[in-house]
């Protein structure tokens, strides 16, 4: 095994060093940003500063936090491209596998050893990054009030960056083993990543049957516009279009109510809503207490992908023909 550790390091030392540097930089930036967000959130709790608190995600620090969390969410595809793909595809391209496999190490032991070294390294870096991103997501949530169950915050939490990193390392290895060409494997990984991104956006809200609830209005202080009640960590599944509901139980699209009935500048929104019998919105959502289960489901899917990809890589290596007669 020591020999395979040496070989893996020697062959992949630049991606390993670059990844370690990127990990260190990202962790440092995430911790600094999380600290800033924590201070800003704490400051907002004091009565004197409450008036200055915008608590908006478009401010500089929350924006940085959002970029950092997005970076972590997208890192797994880079792991697949720069770590996973070259493991086999480059060796196939440069025809070095007969050399490696004709030493005292069998091809499956060679694959197992090199993959294990990479898994340990990606696992270590992934653990540190995932811990930092969880911390950042919580501080982001504390300041902006954005749900931890939504979008980037959800994907940055629950140790998903770790399991996703491991899964996509395996996907990269499998793509390299199956295609035997670096560029083709990268294109395959990129395509699969896009499919995964789109697929998960569609699939994630459907992990469990959503809860449907009438959320009555509470008015903003100036009473000028309705403010829908939302629990802090719910996952909305209305796709940004929450229908209004009236006293008779009929629903009305938001465009009709906000832009049509109550859209004029001279109309008081509150009065307008009352006149049309609107009592609230009909919300479909995944409640906050399901977040852990959702993280568990997605981690399980990542683990499944990880195992499947490794089986594909193992099968390809087992069947690989390294010479012709």
């Amino acid at each position, binding site marked *: 095994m020591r020999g395979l550790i040496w070989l893996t390091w020697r062959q992949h030392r630049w991606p390993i060093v670059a990844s370690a540097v990127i990990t260190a930089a990202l962790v440092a930036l995430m911790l600094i940003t999380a600290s800033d967000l924590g201070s800003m959130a704490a400051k907002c709790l004091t009565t004197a500063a409450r008036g200055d608190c915008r608590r908006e995600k478009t401010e500089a620090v929350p924006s940085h936090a959002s970029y950092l969390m997005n970076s972590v969410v997208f890192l797994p595809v880079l792991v697949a491209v720069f770590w996973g793909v070259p493991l086999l595809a480059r060796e196939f391209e440069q025809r070095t596998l*007969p050399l490696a496999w004709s030493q005292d190490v069998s091809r499956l032991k060679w694959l197992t050893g090199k993959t294990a070294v990479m898994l340990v390294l990606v696992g270590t870096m992934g653990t540190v990054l995932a811990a930092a991103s969880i911390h950042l997501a919580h501080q982001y949530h504390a300041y902006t009030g954005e749900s931890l169950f939504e979008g980037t915050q959800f994907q940055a939490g629950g140790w998903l960056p770790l399991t996703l990193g491991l899964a996509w390392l395996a996907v990269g290895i499998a793509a390299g083993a199956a295609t035997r060409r670096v560029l083709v494997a990268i294109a395959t990984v990129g395509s699969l990543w896009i499919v995964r991104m789109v697929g998960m956006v569609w699939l994630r809200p459907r992990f469990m049957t959503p809860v449907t609830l009438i959320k009555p209005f509470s008015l903003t202080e100036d009473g000028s516009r309705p403010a829908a009640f939302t629990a802090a960590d719910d996952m909305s599944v209305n796709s940004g279009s929450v229908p209004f509901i009236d006293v008779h139980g009929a629903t009305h699209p938001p465009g009709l109510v906000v832009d049509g009935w109550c859209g004029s500048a001279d109309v008081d929104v509150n009065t307008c809503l009352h006149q049309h019998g609107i009592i609230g919105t009909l919300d479909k959502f995944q409640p906050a207490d399901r977040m852990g289960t959702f993280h568990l489901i997605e981690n399980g899917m990542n683990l499944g992908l990880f195992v499947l990809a490794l089986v594909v890589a193992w099968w390809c290596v087992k069947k690989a023909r390294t*010479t012709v007669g």
Partner: protein
Amino acid sequence: MSEVAIETRGLGKRYRRLWALRDFSVSLPANKVVALVGANGAGKSTLMSMAAGILPASQGEIHVDGRVVLLSQDKPLYRTFSVAEMLAFGRHLNRTWDQQRALTWLSRFDIPLDRPCGKLSGGQQTQVAMAVALGARPAVLLLDEPLANLDPVARREVTGELLAEVADSGMTVVLSTHVVAELAGVGDHLLLLSHGRSRLDGDVEELLAQHARLTGPRAAAPPVEGEILQAQHTERQSAFVIRTLLGADTPLAEPWKAQPLTLEDLVLAYLKPHRSLGEEL
């Protein structure tokens, strides 16, 4: 140590519908240089890969006595590794490693240890690959057409050094080639493959002693019994390459003459397709 280095019984390898090697049974002697000869696609590389254990057989079995190392046709090296790192690769990935033997081989050919393999000439890369192969101290060294990119002088030097290694270490070398000229003075044992089957197998000296070129007046058949491998005719003369018990020592009536074959002649006689039988000169 066993007297047999490689033994196969009913060995076969099929790539989809195509049999690269079929019903192949041989015993190759230990502590010899075995010349494995055949046209492109004859099954040499397949046999080597199966002997090295990197290609599973479709049928039959193959047994190799002791550690085996394969130096394949394209002599793969990690291009970014320095020569010293290639030796470290060999040291790390083999249970047995003889650093001194590898270094000695490299110093014989003045190979710089600190240069990346990708910046070495083709001939120097061959020497690095040979050093890695020899450093692993194999009982059987399989060389799959390894000397192709060496000039004739270097080729002779390498084969000479290899013979010395065989004599010193008791190693068996299987040298696969389709360049018959590489074999002159090198092989102790000849295994000739054709279309995935063994066509000729035996001690080189014995095989040469059993073959002869007979020339004489035009005739449909040679004046002695034997397996006719080639027959060529002019208006007044015929020439036959035959396999007989006494070879070039076969007594012949005048004006027939018997000449011994060189190893190259012998191999070419077997490699030439059967349509050459009866071919007009």
